[in-house]
């Protein structure tokens, strides 16, 4: 059994940030990464990030990923196990994992769950035809493996993921027939929307897909307009000839391990699903188990990195490291999070966190 001070589950923006933060204070850290390379979703992000210098704004996502990986590599205190999936968290604090096809046990003093999120699906007739992808899958296909998914795409969802993946598809020479969004307004950043729109791609709000069709794979989709009660308006159907339908309809926090570990959970729509109740410093109701990034509520990668740092500092501090430096670093991270969330764009997250911290929780 491997013993370690801080175990971090997930090597994405939150996990890697947590690792270097905890290691910088002196803690020994082990990061478990399911994929063959760490970096999480950052490795596929070719657009420039928002935020401020503190969150590497202006750099492209994959560049930030490389930077975080480098920080962990150069730290003698950080070990990263790739091709390793955490399988369970047990009552006695033992974490099991599948590592390079072997079952391993780890006994950590503190755990930071930074598992991220998974893509949501929606139901419509023929939603299992080949050619229907999650937006994240399309990104992996294109930006990791260099393969375009098709010729002409219908993008469903005008949140940041839908807009960004549409832009990346266009950069790869793929045509976007339209971006449709069921909500009455574009959910993603409007600068992303404008740059796609001025290249000639229609963005249709209050629209949904009613069915996909095709013999062997997607040959087209029928979309229609929605009224103010989100009900389809008869006679507004449009037939779009596309060979790819891309779903960017939101993410769900990957909280199975938190459920298993008996963290008290709460369903908060503003945070995109069930999330563990945690304190300001990201410690859940299971002592010694912290969360950071999308698993604690779906948000931008900039906030995930700051949350990671905060959880890393807090975990190391609770082990007795950085007794002088840690409180100040925690305050800095909290101030950064507050700054990122304080504007209109962060309103939803703020509301969600308030609901989460509220005492009248429903226990699932």
């Amino acid at each position: 059994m491997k013993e370690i001070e801080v175990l971090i589950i997930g090597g994405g923006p939150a996990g890697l940030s947590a690792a270097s933060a905890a290691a910088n204070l002196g803690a020994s850290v082990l990061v478990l990464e399911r994929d063959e390379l760490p970096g999480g979703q950052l490795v596929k992000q070719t657009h420039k990030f928002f935020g401020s210098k503190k969150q590497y704004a202006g750099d492209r996502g994959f560049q930030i990923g490389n930077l975080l990986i480098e920080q962990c590599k150069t730290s003698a205190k950080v070990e990263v196990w790739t091709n390793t999936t955490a399988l369970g968290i047990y009552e006695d604090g033992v974490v099991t994992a599948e590592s390079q096809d072997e079952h391993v046990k780890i006994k950590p003093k503190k755990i930071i769950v930074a598992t991220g999120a998974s893509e949501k699906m929606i139901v419509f007739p023929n939603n299992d035809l080949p050619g229907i992808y999650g937006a994240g899958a399309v990104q992996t296909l294109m930006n990791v493996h260099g393969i375009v998914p098709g010729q002409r795409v219908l993008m469903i969802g005008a949140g940041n993921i839908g807009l960004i993946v549409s832009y990346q598809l266009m950069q790869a020479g793929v045509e976007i027939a339209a971006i449709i969004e069921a909500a009455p307004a574009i959910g993603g950043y409007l600068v992303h929307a404008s740059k796609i729109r001025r290249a000639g791609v229609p963005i249709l709000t209050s629209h949904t897909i009613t069915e996909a069709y095709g013999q062997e794979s997607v040959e087209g989709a029928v979309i229609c307009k929605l009224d103010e009660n989100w009900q389809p308006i008869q006679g507004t159907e449009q037939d779009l000839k596309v060979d790819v339908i891309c779903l960017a309809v939101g993410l769900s926090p990957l909280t199975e391990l938190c459920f298993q570990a008996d963290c008290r959970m709460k369903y908060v729509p503003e945070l995109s699903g069930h999330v563990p109740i945690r304190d300001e410093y990201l410690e859940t109701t299971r002592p010694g188990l912290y969360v950071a990034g999308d698993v604690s509520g779906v948000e931008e990668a900039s906030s995930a990195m700051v949350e990671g740092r905060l959880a890393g500092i807090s975990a190391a501090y609770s082990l007795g490291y950085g007794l002088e430096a840690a409180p100040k670093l925690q305050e800095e991270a909290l101030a950064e999070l507050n700054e990122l969330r304080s504007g209109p764009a962060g309103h939803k997250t703020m509301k969600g966190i308030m609901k989460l911290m509220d005492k009248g929780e429903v226990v699932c």
Partner: protein
Amino acid sequence: MLNKTGIPTAEDVKKVSPSPDRLKKGPVAIIECFQEIPCNPCTEACKQGAIQPMEDINNLPKLDFEICNGCGVCLSRCPGLAIFIVDGSYSDREAVVRIPYEYLPVPKVGDKVTGLNRSGEELGVFEIIKVQSGGQKNKTYTLWLVVPQDLAMDVRSIRLGGLRHAI
């Protein structure tokens, strides 16, 4: 409505437009950033002190048109690709519009391209007179387009060229 279509309205654009006199004087940045999001690289990119530091990172950028010399550093740094440079002093009848560009193939100097407005509608065929690379790290190109004076505040994109995948 911008938040329904992605197309900034005339009123939106008016808010960030310099006076016709200022446009005539020489290159100036047009920051088409209309939504408060946590983002401030433009303020740090501007070495002229024309884009004022933000009190709150969610603030909209504030540009002093009189201080701005249209150098274009902010254009290539803006993560939202929302900054353009317009030079109304190019000639009596023509202006130069600089746009950020991240597609392939990158047009060459002398190429004639189809200019598009904020809705993606064609406005005519215009010549590229300069192409600036954003460099190894930044990668955002800046295209210099010569357009008629009266389209200087409308041309914001070009029809994407050549690259299509074989079936």
